[in-house]
């Protein structure tokens, strides 16, 4: 396969931006899965951090090849999702939100204070093993998979839960099980995003996975919408590209994300791409 020179140049110039779009797209999907069943988690950045740190350590310390590291990077986020998800299963959604906010702070303290994570300096010299095609391949698979699942009985149950969890339970939907499955899926997607980003940026640090990135990830899905997986990804791309276009206006850039979030919530409650998943009656 040969890439035309002009495309190669373009990819090279905007490599960081393109990688960020792919990784943020995965994070948006991770957020979508939880919001689509009517739950709120603020743990996406924490799950991403777990994927990033565990994969970086597997590469740096265990010298494992990337095709082993990448799938194994979901283990830590999934384990933590289960530890958080199971006790909050039967509680109202607020508890999950609070527990996941706490998670990010606890993990930050762990990264700072446990030697193997490199303390405040983080982990350096991670080889750049994630390729652009891997990031976008996984993103495309994620979008397609979630779309196909959304257009089935599972998707109907998800939408029903989002509208009225009590009525959904009366229809026979195992609501706690869906909550846990969504949280685990979300941890897998965020963990993969973390591993991929760690292996394109060569450095990871304890402050990259705290509360602020968690809110940014939430805003991807709020801006794009949660009616379809592609809407959330579009929101992520919009919020990734916009700061690039505003490079020459750094003061404006800082407040822009906040303004967009407020405007989106007030005037676009269903997001920029607000339509629901089409489920054509067979």
């Amino acid at each position, binding site marked *: 396969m040969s890439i035309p020179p002009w495309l190669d140049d373009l990819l090279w110039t905007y490599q960081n931006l393109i990688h960020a779009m792919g990784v943020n797209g995965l994070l948006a999907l991770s957020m979508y899965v939880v919001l689509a069943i009517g739950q709120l988690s603020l743990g996406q950045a924490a799950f991403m951090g777990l994927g990033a740190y565990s994969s970086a350590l597997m590469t740096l310390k265990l010298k494992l090849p990337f095709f082993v590291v990448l799938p194994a990077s979901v283990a830590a986020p999934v384990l933590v999702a289960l530890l958080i998800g199971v006790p909050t299963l039967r509680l109202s959604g607020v508890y999950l939100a609070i527990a996941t906010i706490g998670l990010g702070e606890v993990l930050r303290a762990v990264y700072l204070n446990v030697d193997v994570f490199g303390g405040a300096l983080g982990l350096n010299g991670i080889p750049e093993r994630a390729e652009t095609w891997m990031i976008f391949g996984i993103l495309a698979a994620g979008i397609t*998979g979630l779309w*196909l*699942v959304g257009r*089935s*009985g*599972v998707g*109907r*149950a998800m*939408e*029903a839960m989002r*509208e*009225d969890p*009590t*009525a*959904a*339970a*009366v*229809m*026979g*939907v*195992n*609501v706690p099980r869906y909550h846990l499955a969504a949280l685990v899926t979300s941890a897998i997607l965020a963990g993969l995003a973390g591993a991929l980003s760690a292996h394109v940026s060569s450095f990871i640090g304890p402050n990259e996975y705290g509360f602020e990135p968690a809110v940014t990830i939430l805003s991807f899905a709020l801006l794009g919408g949660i009616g379809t997986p592609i809407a959330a990804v579009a929101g992520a791309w919009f919020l990734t590209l916009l700061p690039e276009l505003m490079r020459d206006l750094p003061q404006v850039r800082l407040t822009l994300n906040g303004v967009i979030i407020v405007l989106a919530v007030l005037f676009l409650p269903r997001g920029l791409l607000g339509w*629901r998943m089409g*489920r054509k*009656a*067979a």
Partner: protein
Amino acid sequence: MTLPHAPLLTTQQLTRRYAGLVAVDHVDLVVPQGGVHAVIGPNGAGKTTLFNLLSGLVTPSEGRISFAGADITAQSAHRRAGLGIARTFQNIRIFGAMTVLENVLTGLHPRLRSSLGAVIFRLPSFRAEERDAVAGARAALDLVGLSARAADPASSLAYGDQRRLEIARAMAQNPKLLLLDEPAAGMNPAETVALGELVRRIASAHTTILLVEHDMGFVMRLSDSVTVLNFGRQIFTGTPGAVRSEPAVVEAYLGARLAAKLQAHHG
């Protein structure tokens, strides 16, 4: 196993307390297999709380529930749906953003068996299951006369139609027991007559109906038996004919009406 003449549902000393009041007070309900059975009582008597207990939305403070020969007291709401208990809500709870057909399809949820792999790869087994589900949902819509609205958003239906949609969604579950909480509320007389016919059509050897309704004419025409609750207590169970001449029932209703009148005067 259920014996032919064993009751479909029984409760033993079923009780639910809230701070400062007993919403359902040691109720021993016996619902035989088949037919229409009514639960009546003044406002606040505990009828909806009883339904919430039976469908698993509220946990009992005391007492037990058996259904089709098994103790279901500890079963969650979604398990009870799978066992054959379906219901409608006094305050309509359709999924407004979904289409009418999709609403009914949610009722078929416990019967969907496709694995995640079959769903993602759209295997023939998944396609066949979806086709059957859609056919089942359409049949339920036919039953209540809403087929023409299948593709419309459920929130666009008129009030009476939303109530019928709830019945279709519950019937898609192919229930053994259908709990109807004030199905005629907000319906005009013509709609109420049509609803009565619908209830009669649905009630069968397979589907037993437990009905809460304030429209006494409706209850008396349709019901095989009537249970009366007052302040959470079961004060009467018998035939519709006998209920009218039962002094305790008359008193409960007159008492409630008197209280309402007094409140109107003083409030």
